[in-house]
Every structure is written in C-alpha cells, then in structure tokens.
C-alpha cells in the first residue's frame, strides 16, 4: 500500500490543474494553500448553526441575517470563509419550507455548512430536488403537511443559500449554545426540520 496519497491518480490530476492555473496567472500556490486551510480548519456546520441560534435569540440579528447574509456571517467572525459569493438566507415559516440544491454541480456555502455530504452531490438529489421535493424530503424523514409550500433554491450562480429553520418550542428560554447544538447540517440545507 502507498504511504501517501501523492500517487493517487486524482491527486496527480489536481496537481496538474493547479500547475496550469498558476502558470496562467490565475492563482498562486499561497492562495490555493490558504483556501484549503480555510476549508479544513474552519468550514463546519457549527458555524451555520451558530448563526441560526443567534437569529432565533436576537430578532435584530435575524433581520440583518435575512437582509445581508455576508455581513451577518462577518458579524459572527465567519466573513473570511464566506466571501466570493452572495449569501442568501431563506427563512422557514409555518407555511413555507425551503430547501437548497445545486442542479449543475454541488455549490453551497461550505464555510458555514462544512464539506457537502455525498448525497448533496448525487445525480439523484440534484435532479429530484427540483422535480419532486416533497418525496425527497419524505425519504429524509421529513413529512410536511400538504398545506406547507415548498420553495427549492437552485444555486446555479454566485448566490449561496442557507436555510433558517423554525425554532424549537421554548427557544426563548433556551441558552443560545444549546439551541445551536440542535441545528444540523441537513437542517441548514432544508432536508431536516432543523
């Protein structure tokens, strides 16, 4: 067995691509290293969960989050990872449920949700989310009443989405850190209640 992954075909392909980007003047080694360090060190659904819990506790933050997601991410110290795209936060209500997909590839705000799960990148999820979201959600164990309107957000451009789930009962009396612990990555994608 190989001791490292340098010999893997995919690693060699990635390196060749990096070399072409650098040769073309589109990136430097330092920039690529910084991006990877950001992802591996900071990207986590814990970040998105903290934003959600703050929004549940602080109506002012909720308003800022919905109005300007990038500024609201920066306010909690997540600005560095959340640059380069427009962050749109979509709020679930009792009548409207939101879910996110990238039908063309697998875009989502990695810094705030962590590396995307395999199913998010699958052809099945990407094609079915826009076609039959209610059936897809049911397979995730999320059965929504027929009266709930479903909005599917396709991240095909420079917009990245994060779902603001409905708060649990008694959120007002619950500590913000405890609330954040109840928010899952699937909740931030919209494939779970929270």
């Amino acid at each position, binding site marked *: 067995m190989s001791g490292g992954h340098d010999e893997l075909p995919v690693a060699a392909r990635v390196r060749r691509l990096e070399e072409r980007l650098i040769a073309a003047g589109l990136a430097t080694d330092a920039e690529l290293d910084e991006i990877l360090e950001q992802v591996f060190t900071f990207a986590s659904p814990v970040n998105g969960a903290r934003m959600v819990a703050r929004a549940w506790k602080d109506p002012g933050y909720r308003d800022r989050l919905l109005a300007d997601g990038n500024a609201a991410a920066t306010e909690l110290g997540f600005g560095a990872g959340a640059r380069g795209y*427009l962050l749109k936060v979509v709020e679930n209500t009792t009548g409207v449920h939101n879910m996110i997909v990238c*039908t*063309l590839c697998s875009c989502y705000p990695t810094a705030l949700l962590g590396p995307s799960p395999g199913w998010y990148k699958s052809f099945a999820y990407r094609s079915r989310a*826009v*076609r*039959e*979201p*209610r059936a897809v959600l049911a397979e995730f164990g999320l059965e929504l009443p027929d009266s709930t*309107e*479903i*909005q*599917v*957000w*396709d991240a*095909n*451009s*420079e*917009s990245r989405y994060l779902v603001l789930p409905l708060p649990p009962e008694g959120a007002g009396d619950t500590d913000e850190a405890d609330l954040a612990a109840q928010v899952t990555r699937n909740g931030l994608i919209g494939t779970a209640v929270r």
Partner: protein
Amino acid sequence: MTRFAAGSRVRALAPDPAGHTRLPRYVRGHVGEVIEVRAVWPLPDETVRGIVRAEPVYAVRFPAAALWGSGSHSVIIDMWESYLEEAS
C-alpha cells in the same frame, strides 16, 4: 440599467449552447417571475472563453406546474439577463 424588475414575467430562452452555461435545461423555454434583482455578475458562458462581460442577474421563481406539468412547489433560480426574454 436593468431590463427586468421584481414582478416581471420572463421566459427562459432555449438555446443549445456548445459550451459552458449556467442555464439548466429544465428551465429552458419556461415562464417565471422575477422576485429580485440579485447583482451584476460576469456571464459565465463568456467568462470561460476569456471574455468578461458583467450583466444583471435575477432571481426567478418558476412554478413546478410550469416546469413539469404538475406539482405545487416552486423553484427559484438565478438567471443572467442574456438567458431571459419578456413573457407576455
């Protein structure tokens, strides 16, 4: 200057480009409603050919019934202005 505004009824064009595009097949030819002017961003179809031309991008809501002939949900997707025409 933007060609459309929130509330505009728009139709996604139905080209069959040889190269890269962010206009997915499933919305081509269908009518939706602009819900928001998102931003002004370079058109990716041209960026990949080394031409940087920014234009308005709109968030457009397509009812499932328009896209698929059935369904009560809606799909919201960003459309570069070049992807759209006015729908009557």
